[in-house]
């Protein structure tokens, strides 16, 4: 087992195992760092959502906490002007592609985006950017749940759950760039895919893109 080291996050002394990723150390010690794509069990973090920025004394630019291994004596700040600026921009960028209709969203109240907004004092609307129009495509072919691509933030947690926890392989990423999305093989409906409706992907979704149907 790795040796224990002491680090400082926002002035608070925290004991952690050396090499552990900073994001999980912070979260376990009740220090909130915004994050969407991080999965603790993943050996090589995705580092795609670009929300978990922190500043470490001695490095010039903010780094992502999900990829940062803990080292002895590390001094971490989760809130600095540089960090707040990046988080604010990344958050607004994600919102610009996220169909904002919280009132009708089944995840209203437990949504990770809402949590980030609350924790960081960010607004759930766009002030610098124009919304990117996204066609409303809802796949409600499964009996128990539905997938609303317009709400998806492409964090990939559902793909991890499907591949690595459920071991099914019904969904994955397809296409590139701005067209990247979560699909089944050959873009079939979920009901036509190997999906077993285990529901693990729905539980993994942080934003209400995958949601259980009522009743």
């Amino acid at each position: 087992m790795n040796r224990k080291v002491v680090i400082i996050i926002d002035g608070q002394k925290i004991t952690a195992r050396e090499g552990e990723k900073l994001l999980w150390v912070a979260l376990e010690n009740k220090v909130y760092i915004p994050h969407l794509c991080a999965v603790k069990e993943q050996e090589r973090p995705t580092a795609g959502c670009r929300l978990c920025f922190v500043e470490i004394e001695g490095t010039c630019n903010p780094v992502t906490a999900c990829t940062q291994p803990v080292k002895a004596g590390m001094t971490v700040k989760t809130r600095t002007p540089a960090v707040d600026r990046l988080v604010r921009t990344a958050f607004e960028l994600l919102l610009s592609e996220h169909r904002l209709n919280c009132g009708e969203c089944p995840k209203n109240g437990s949504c990770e985006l809402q949590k980030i907004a609350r924790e960081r004092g960010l607004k759930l609307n766009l002030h610098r950017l124009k919304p990117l129009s996204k066609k409303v495509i809802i796949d409600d072919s499964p009996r128990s749940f539905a997938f609303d691509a317009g709400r998806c933030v492409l964090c990939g947690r559902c793909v991890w759950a499907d591949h690595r926890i459920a071991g099914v392989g019904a969904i994955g990423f397809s296409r590139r760039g701005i067209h990247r999305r979560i699909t089944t093989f050959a873009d079939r409906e979920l009901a036509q895919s190997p999906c077993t409706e285990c529901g693990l992907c729905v539980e993994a979704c942080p934003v209400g893109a995958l949601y259980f149907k009522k009743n």
Partner: protein
Amino acid sequence: MDVSLTERAYIKMKAASINNLKYLEDKPVIRVGTGTCGKAAGALRIREAFKDELTRKGIDAGVVEVGCMGHCYAEPLIIISKPGFPSLCYGKVDEVLVKRLVEDFLINNDPCYEFAMAALEPNDIFPTFRDFPRGVYEEKMILENCGFIDPEEIDFYIARDGYSALADVLNMEPGEVLGEVKASNLRGRGGAGFPAGIKWEVVRKAGNGMKYVICNGDEGDPGAFMDRNILESNPHQVIEGMIICAYAVGASLGYLYIRSEYSQAIRRVNNALRQAREKNLLGASILGSAFCFDLEVFSGAGAFVCGEGTALINSMEGGMGIPQHRPPELAVSGYLGEPTVLNNVKTFCYVPLIMRKGADWFKKTGTPGSPGTAVFTLAGKIAGPGLVEVPMGTTLRQLIFDVGEGIPRNKKFKAVQIGGPSGGCLPEQALDIPLDFDSLEEAGAMMGSGGLVVLDEDDCMVGMARFFLNFTQQESCGKCTFCRLGTKHMLEILKAITRGEGDMASLETLRELAEDVKTGSLCNLGKTAPNPVLTTLKYFRDEYEAHIKGKCCPSLKCPDLIAYFIEPDKCSKLCNICVGSCPVEAIYTRDNGLKAINRDKCVKCDNCLKACPPEYSAVIKVSPPGLVEEREREMK
């Protein structure tokens, strides 16, 4: 002194190669440049014309296909070497000139100097490339043999001391080889300029397990074609460099990752690999030593981001070509999780030269921080486009105005876009900075692949930023938020500005987004994508403001912000050419017989402006378009 086993093998091999090329001695040899560039300009037709003509006239002469010399403006290019004459290079060759050269030069000993570009060797009769401004600055290291040897025949390379460095290296300790590369301070030519020796050392020290050497030939920058050129013109130099690297780090397998669009490069490299294997330069116990190494070509599927190391590895492993977070660096965990050296085509090319001539020889050229030469592709508004190799530290001004012969048609220089979509646009005042890895980064651009696009007064800088951002936005893999969405929003803002729909607030958002995408992105595609925007904002902010505040494109380039107008005092009643040139019948004749353009119909195709005879030059572009109405009112 004892001659080692590998040296004996090499001496024998070289003698055989020279012997194989004997058939070209004592008779005229015609070398035809058949790189992809030469072929596109008709080199194959020229080669056939020579063969036909030689057979018809019954002349015994050799016709050899060679790679490209880098004089793109003069393709198709040929070199004629006839005993008793200096070797002469002829450009823009056509079938008529072929007949003439065979008749006058090969039969009657008149070299047709009026058609020759330059001689290759110093002589008393005709100037050499060295006597031209370009030749004064150019110093060919890795391009030395490009355009002179047949890339499909290994004997040509061996006869010019090719693989002699390898034969020597195999008698050295791997640590010595590494030491020499480290001492040379060779920096990676892929763009970032990371010292190759340090990278190799990490791999060398990573234990005795499986290791890989990979050559990054996924060249994708618009306007860059040097890697293709080298792979097509002299593949063995890359291969020799890779074998030496493998020996130094202890790798037993390597790959050349070449994008599939480079079909001729892939074919020639595969052919070269086959010939190298036949000569025991690859495979088991190379040249009789205990060292075993083999190489294969991996053809990339064409995503720009696969030039990024982690994405390249992902795509080789069968995954999506998508970058991953670093560290771990590839030297620690690369292909299949094993330590991997990944270097650019050009980087490997320097290795045989450094081993043959020594690190000190290499360091004599260039600057202390960036020794050696730099290869640039000159493109855009430049009189002599092409592939050039100059010492590091040459200034942009020398490169553009001396080597590239300046801007054509007496136009004014505006900016130079260096380093492709990851680089920046530098203005006139930056022309005197010496070109090396560090000074370019300071100026906001980067060496990148070495693509260099020259822009003149007719180019719109906002349009330029939009062009490059459009490229990076389309090539974004979509994994990380900043690159996927940030570049999209930046592009939308730029599009609005070039349509005259921008406002100052959105310009501020553009700047903020550009800075955040630069700091926040996961990989170097995203981290460098905003460079064209940031540099144009820094050096050409007035153009952005003209587009926003004046709804005017100062360079008369953005279609939505210009209108075509026929100046009545220049137009002639006797001429109708513009009317016929218009594809949408937008041009009509006024009551007084002069022509005018119906703006509602005009599609801004530029035909009338080109068609209007120079003695009138009556068609002009104006911006903002409202100026047309003003002129019309004045006329009444």
